[in-house]
């Protein structure tokens, strides 16, 4: 029974990791770049929401929308300042370092908005559901549903619309997409905005489940997103979702079996093993073989 309960908890947490992983995979898919400032964007969105909340008084849903909007805006800002100017092949590391600088900047702005070490982040009050001996927190179930809806919406956007077609074409080969008339720089901006929205949803889910926020949230969510993407397979969207779920399961099981202090060690050990043994991750072996970025040097 315990195993079932732990697995269920893992899936609930994993669904938020899946969203974080998806945001990374989206950006990596189209730009072949890592956005180190991603977590800082989420932190900024959440900090802005907490800062504005007493002024507006919109409650939990207000927090949700401001977090999402703040994260999306910050993400778009990062794209303009750090990634658009370095779109050439040689700019990969430069873009990464520029995004690191903006990470520091957004972190500092957020800690100005949140002067104390921890701040309460209001969640939705929902009753806990019991199925026999297994319990599910109502808000977590709602979050799981939200993650599912977000993933389905993203799927529809990417696979059923013209914009999605353009994004996928650019991810496949930026040069040929550009030659066929896609506005590749604009698509980069759109993708960053999308990743910000997805990340904002994930940030709301994580923070309201925890009930509080600390300045370390930025670094934490960057790690989780990166790890989910790597486990699943770099460049694969389905992989990112699966990777996020696996990460959630592994974390909760390792935490239950070995104690909380070994949880992160197990996670990092897993990622290291995946990279050493099967660098393409679970889904991305084909992507890894054909991916120029895997062979690409600075």
């Amino acid at each position, binding site marked *: 029974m315990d195993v079932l309960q732990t697995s269920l908890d893992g899936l609930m947490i994993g669904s938020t990791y899946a969203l974080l992983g998806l945001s990374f995979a989206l950006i990596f898919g189209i730009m072949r770049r890592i956005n180190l400032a991603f977590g800082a964007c989420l932190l900024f969105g959440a900090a802005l929401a907490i800062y504005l909340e007493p002024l507006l008084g919109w409650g939990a849903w207000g927090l949700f929308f401001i977090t999402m909007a703040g994260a999306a805006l910050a993400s778009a800002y990062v794209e303009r300042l750090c990634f658009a100017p*370095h779109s050439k092949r040689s700019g990969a590391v430069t873009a990464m370092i520029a995004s690191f600088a903006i990470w520091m900047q957004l972190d500092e702005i957020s800690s100005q908005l949140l002067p104390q070490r921890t701040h309460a982040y209001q969640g939705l009050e929902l009753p806990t559901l019991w199925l026999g001996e297994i319990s599910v927190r109502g808000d977590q179930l709602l979050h799981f549903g939200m993650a599912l809806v977000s993933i389905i919406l993203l799927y529809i956007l990417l696979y059923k619309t013209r914009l999605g077609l353009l994004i996928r074409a650019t991810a496949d080969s930026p040069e040929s997409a550009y030659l066929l008339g896609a506005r590749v720089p604009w698509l980069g901006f759109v993708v960053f905005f999308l990743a910000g929205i997805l990340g904002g949803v994930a940030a709301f889910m994580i923070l309201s489940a925890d009930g509080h926020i600390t300045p370390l949230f930025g670094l934490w969510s960057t790690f989780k997103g990166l790890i989910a993407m790597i486990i699943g397979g770099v460049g694969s969207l389905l992989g990112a979702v699966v990777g996020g779920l696996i990460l959630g399961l592994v974390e909760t099981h390792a935490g239950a079996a070995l104690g909380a202090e070994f949880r992160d060690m197990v996670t990092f050990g897993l990622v290291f093993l995946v990279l050493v043994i099967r660098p393409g991750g679970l889904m991305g072996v084909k992507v890894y073989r054909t991916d120029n970025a895997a062979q690409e040097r600075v």
Partner: protein
Amino acid sequence: MDLYLASVLTNMTLIAFLALSAYLVLVVGEVSFGQQAFFCIGAYLTASVTALAGAHIVWGLLAAILGGAVCALLLGLLTLRLSGLYFAISTLCFAELLRFSLLHIRFTRLIDGREIGPDGPEGFSNIRWIFEHNYAVTDFLLLAASCLIILLGLLFGLQRSHLMLTAHMVGHDPVLAQSQGFSPHRYRLGFIALSGAVAGFGGGLFALFNTHIEPAMFGVMLGVHGLAYAIIGGLGTPLGPLLGVVLDIGLLESIRQLAAYRMIVFGGLVALLLVFRPEGIASPRLVARLRRRWGRRRV
């Protein structure tokens, strides 16, 4: 010299070792988020050798160099077929794994009534070698700075050497290097090991200077800062990473009054700088141009 100034300068010197080690990895075309791991290994080894075993500082620093190099070589061997992003993330995971393992390593002994040794998250306290041997802060600064100058001198001397030029070629285009008969793998492993040694040495000095080290000091922030200094400074010359360090710590310390807002300004400035000088301040192109102009004038 002012004590405050001396300690800021010492810190800059110590971080410069880390930045130089990131530079050495960048030369062969890889990005490492894990240089802090070798810095950490060096710090713990020096601390153990000098404080636990009571040996001379030279042995401590030698252990740091060797330990850093061996661990880097091991990491390099494990990640031999990875490159680019994959290599960067695996170094990050390695560093975090090491840091988390240190949280569980406890080996303390009572020496002169003091608990000495690594003590999990509490870290390693009472590394008192430089106190016991009456080194003032300025003396230590002199020691660290002269080591740094020797290292920089070595790198400068090798700048136009066959070894360095081949390493740069491996970094630019491994396929080209291979077609010329050089083994990219060997150069990569060699430079990664070298970077481990440099970082380990810096870490050893760091432990001696700080007298207390703990796993939390060697987080990913430290490594990414080192990497950022190397990139901001530029890869054109070994002085580049130093330039990055001076710019960051020097500038930040001089605008201390604006402490609360300094990262807001500084982060934006760095990003803007990279828009205009994507290869860093002392970019290879700038260095080549200066060298040409300089050479002509001398002729």
